[in-house]
């Protein structure tokens, strides 16, 4: 899949990054992989939940680029929620990730605007 010129992300990585930004704006300071995949599916009405291999590969690449950071859940916290021995891996949007998401949204807006601008005829300036 071709990497985009602006952010260097492929489409799935971009979708996840924007979803992560969306979750953070909604007040979730951390989220696990399935959270992201489910919110993405909800946001894109009708799309199915992203498969695990695609999800984790995209998350790993976003992490490698510094857009996300991750940590294992404290086992004691998992045990309190009845998930003894099965802690989740939680992701957070980093400052670099937020910047990347903002720049992508800005680019999308520019593309949207430029796609709707009708060039004026050359002699209308006079």
């Amino acid at each position, binding site marked *: 899949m071709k990497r985009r010129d602006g952010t260097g992300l492929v489409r799935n990585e971009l979708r996840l990054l924007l979803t992560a930004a969306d979750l953070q704006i909604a007040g979730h300071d951390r989220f696990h*992989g399935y959270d992201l995949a489910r919110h993405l599916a909800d946001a894109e009405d009708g799309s199915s939940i992203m*498969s*695990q*291999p695609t999800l984790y590969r995209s998350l790993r690449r976003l992490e490698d680029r510094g857009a996300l950071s991750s940590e294992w859940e404290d086992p004691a916290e998992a045990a309190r929620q009845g*998930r003894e021995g099965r*802690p*989740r891996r939680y992701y957070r949007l980093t400052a670099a990730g937020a910047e990347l998401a903002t720049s992508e949204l800005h680019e999308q807006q520019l593309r949207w605007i430029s796609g709707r601008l009708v060039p004026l005829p050359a002699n209308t300036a006079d």
Partner: protein
Amino acid sequence: MQSDYRARFPLSIRLAHAINRLLTWGMTTPDRQRLLSEGLADWEAMAEDQRPRQVLGRAIRGIPAAIWFRLSDRDITSMPAGIALSLVGLGGIVSGSAASPYPEPFKLFVVVTSAGLLLVGVNFVRNPRRVILARYRPAGLLAAVGFTGLAVTFPTAAQWPYDGPVLENVVMDRAMQVSFVVIAIGFLLLIAASHVREGRRWVTTAGIVLVIGTATLGVTQIVWGVTMAPIDLTMSVPSLVIGLGALSFVHVLPRLRHLDIVYSEVKTGRLDQQGLRKGKS
């Protein structure tokens, strides 16, 4: 972090986890454990708000993507290819040493070649993320000698033990012999790479030569295997396997350029910063 697979999980999660275990087989332990642990927690979270059928559907939907990533991702190990190569080598040794009707010298070189391929495969499996050139010397030498021998001792029409017309096809014969020679040159370049300062370039060249040789070998072996099918199935099947194995390696070889290439283990202290041999040119 250990993956925690417990029998008390619902069947859908157990099956999804089993699919994950299969698809991550051969990856390095830390990567695999992380994926399995994260995946298991993920299936569990999914099972809270989705039906078992949907959990399984997502697991099954991930299979093609996982296979594609395993074959194409430069970050993931070459272990499956190494295992396939080892098996092809082992099969070649068995079939070459068995009582086949081919001339003895040809059978001998089948065994030598297969032993070389087996060792190359074992080296891949031992260290799937790095090409440690020194380790490929014995394997490369055996394979180079073997393939050259196969080209030289290739059965003539008079030595051909079957009534079938296979060896009467001159184009096929020459194509197979040429592919043997090209592959032997590729292995010799790989050996040479361990002796020179700019070994990385030599490895790249060896890779290109091996791609050309294995592609030719793959196609000719498959055509040969199909042609042999009505004459002798016991010769046709190994030929088809070798052909498919060779073609799968055409796909894998370009990926080698992404791997670390070092002369030897760092602990020997004979490496420069790129891990290539010091002081020789």
